[in-house]
C-alpha cells in the first residue's frame, strides 16, 4: 500500500519496484497479442511510460497489476490497429515437403493465416488469446475489460468468418 502511494506521488524508486515486479506479466500479455518479442519489449516500455504519466489517476487501494494489464492491452491493440502482420507471416509458417496431404495442409495453413490477418482487430485478439494461446475466457475477459459473453461471441464470430473465407477459397476443413 505504502509503495503504491509513493508511486502516485511520483517516487521513481517506487515506480522502479513496480516496474521490476510487473514487467514480465505486462510483456507476456503484449507478446501474445503482437507476436513479436522485439515489438513487445518496445510496447512494454510504452505501457510503463503511460502508467508513469497517468500515476495521479491511479487509486492506491486498487490492484496495480490489473490496471497495468488493462493499459498494456490497450497499447497492444493500438499497435495492431496501426500495423499489419504481413511482414511477420512468411517466416512463421514452416515450409512443408513430402506427401501431397502435407503440401495441401500447408496450403490450408497459408490460407487461414491470410484470412486471420484480415479479421477485425477485436476479433483477432480474442481469437488469438483463446484459440492460439488457449487462455481461459474469464482471463481474456478480465484483461480486455469486457464481459465473458462478449469474448465468447467475438471468438465465435472470428471462427465463423474464417470458416466462410476458407470455404470461399475452396478449403473445407
Amino acid at each position, binding site marked *: 500500500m505504502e509503495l503504491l502511494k509513493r508511486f502516485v506521488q511520483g517516487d521513481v524508486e517506487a515506480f*522502479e519496484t513496480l*516496474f*521490476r515486479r510487473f514487467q514480465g506479466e505486462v*510483456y507476456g500479455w503484449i507478446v501474445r497479442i503482437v*507476436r513479436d518479442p522485439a515489438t513487445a519489449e518496445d510496447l512494454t*516500455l510504452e505501457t*510503463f*511510460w503511460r502508467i508513469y504519466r497517468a500515476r495521479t489517476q491511479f487509486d492506491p487501494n486498487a490492484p496495480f497489476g490489473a490496471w497495468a494489464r488493462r493499459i498494456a492491452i490497450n497499447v497492444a491493440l493500438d499497435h495492431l490497429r496501426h500495423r499489419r502482420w504481413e511482414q511477420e507471416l512468411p517466416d512463421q509458417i514452416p515450409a512443408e515437403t513430402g506427401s501431397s496431404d502435407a503440401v495441401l495442409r500447408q496450403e490450408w495453413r497459408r490460407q487461414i493465416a491470410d484470412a486471420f490477418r484480415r479479421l477485425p482487430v477485436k476479433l483477432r485478439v480474442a481469437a488469438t488469446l483463446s484459440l492460439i494461446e488457449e487462455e481461459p475466457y474469464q482471463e481474456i475477459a478480465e484483461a480486455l475489460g469486457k464481459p465473458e459473453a462478449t469474448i465468447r461471441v467475438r471468438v465465435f464470430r472470428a471462427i465463423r468468418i474464417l470458416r466462410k473465407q476458407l470455404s470461399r477459397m475452396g478449403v473445407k476443413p
Partner: protein
Amino acid sequence: MKEHDQDEIQSLLKEAFPRMDAKLRRDLWPAMSRKLEAKEPPVPWYDWALIAASGAILALFPSFVLLFAYHF
C-alpha cells in the same frame, strides 16, 4: 457451426501461428530509466529569462535584495 469445424480451424491456426514464448528474457528497467530521463521536461525558456532578469536587477540595484528576500 459444427464443433468439428471449430476444432479443425483451431488446429490450423495453431499450426500457422505457434504459441509465443511469453517469458521476458531481460530486465527492461535500464531502458525504462533512459526513457524517463530523456522525457524529463526541459526548463522552459521563460524560467531562464526570469532568472536572468532577477540577477540583472540585483546586480544593478543591490538594495532590491530586501524586496526579493521579503517575497521568498
